[in-house]
């Protein structure tokens, strides 16, 4: 039988049956501890991610400058 956590002693066997018959396995909170395998990023993907990261940092500087300019 599937186990119950220490803090879940009020869960009945009927509850367990309902959970197992109505939820998909990936929906069970306990099974979400299993990590999804890491994806290897290829060159163009890294390029896009870094470009957008630099874009964001640059634009934040622009916003800060705009705030500074409007305050002066």
């Amino acid at each position: 039988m599937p186990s119950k956590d220490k803090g879940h002693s009020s869960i009945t066997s009927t509850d367990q049956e309902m959970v197992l018959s109505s939820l998909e396995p990936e929906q069970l909170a306990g099974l979400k501890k299993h990590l999804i395998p890491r994806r290897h990023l290829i060159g163009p993907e890294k390029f896009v991610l870094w470009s957008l990261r630099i874009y964001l940092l640059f634009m934040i500087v622009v916003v800060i400058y705009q705030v500074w300019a409007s305050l002066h």
Partner: protein
Amino acid sequence: MGAGPLSRAKAQGVTQADVVITHEDVDRAHDRVRVSAARAQRGTFSKFRLLWLLVGPGILVMLGENDGPSMISYAATGARFGIGFFLPFVVLTFCMAIVVQEMTMRLGSATHRGHAELIFDRFGPFWGWFSMIDLGIGNFLTLITEFIAIRAGLGFFGVPPWAAVVSALVFLCLAIMTHRYWTWERTLLAIAVFNLIFVPVALLTHPNWHSVGSALITWKPLPGGLSQDTLIIVLADIGATVTPWMLFFQQSATVDKGLTRKDIHLGRIDTVVGAALAATAAVATIIATAPLFAHHMTAENFQGAEFAQALQPLIGRFGAALFALGIVEAGMVASVTISMSSAYAFGEVARRPHSLNLPVGQGKAFYSVLFLCAATAGAIVLIPGLPLVYVVLLVNVVAVLAMPPALVFLFMLANDREVMGDLVSPTWANILATCVVVFLTLAGVLFGVSVIAPNVFALLGGK
């Protein structure tokens, strides 16, 4: 007993000993039993019941994004530019929101994982933390503006700032203390629909429907042409519709609600209905404040309540009170959804229990993050002398700037066959998503150019 789920779980290398049933699972299972029962029945009523059971995250995220700063941005738009270019533009931004949010709903339904969790698992902590920092800073700044809106809106009725902040925090606590996703969702939906309060306010201004229709078709006029001020409003209006927290919230709420692959079609309807409702409220707000433009009233220093006060001579005390209430409602609902977005992301990244189905004892970290984010933002709003409207517009601008990196992660996940299987984005969805990323990036670049080299606009024929 449970042969289906467990056998599938075993196929994934999961043994029975691995399966720990929690209260969160039991509550979600109750919801899914009702969905299965409605799906098994035939007839129009059953179809509507199924739709009723499955709507929620899409409507909440869209009406939640019609938050305090968004409504103030729309109000500023109407007051500065009247009825014209910005009416169809706002409708376009909601179309972009549908394209983006559909992907998060599909991801959540297919993987049963939150957005932060997926980014960390698939791309690793390096990119995951970048994403979290963007979300954390953006959410916190936005939360501050929600409290600004609540404070300003309640200020119209003479409520002192500290009482406004406390009442918002009490509302937040009441909203989450049900410890049941379903109850929380239905309660918040009922309150969020009050976002449409801006429709009667717009009607009270007796708008020129010919001008409204003409603007929606021709995208004109755009008083003042292309200028830095116009660009700030353009970015603020985009930021009022598509922001990073929406991606994280809808995917996490979809998972918490328990949607599955079978529900994706109705999840799309949920998203579209939400966008339609939110677009209606946004357009109504622009129409409602357009008389301020027609009467040449400056909106430079308006806060939420001051828009209401400015409208009072034109639409009466009742109409102005409705407007102020609308601003309060927008801030209240969004303060809950945005705090939720932060708490979900924290739980996913820290691998702590994160669900509204959790009792407080089992979700201490989740509920603590939720409340502390809101309480800190509320405290900051009580600092005297903050340039509130400027802060509001800037927060929306920052949200737009943070969107392209967030969208690329979403785009890559939605096209990741190992994660999505046969639910990867179709070509047409990828084309639309690419257009949204390019559009948002160009809008940000244009804003940057307008700040660094404002003379460029003069060369382009603007001001």
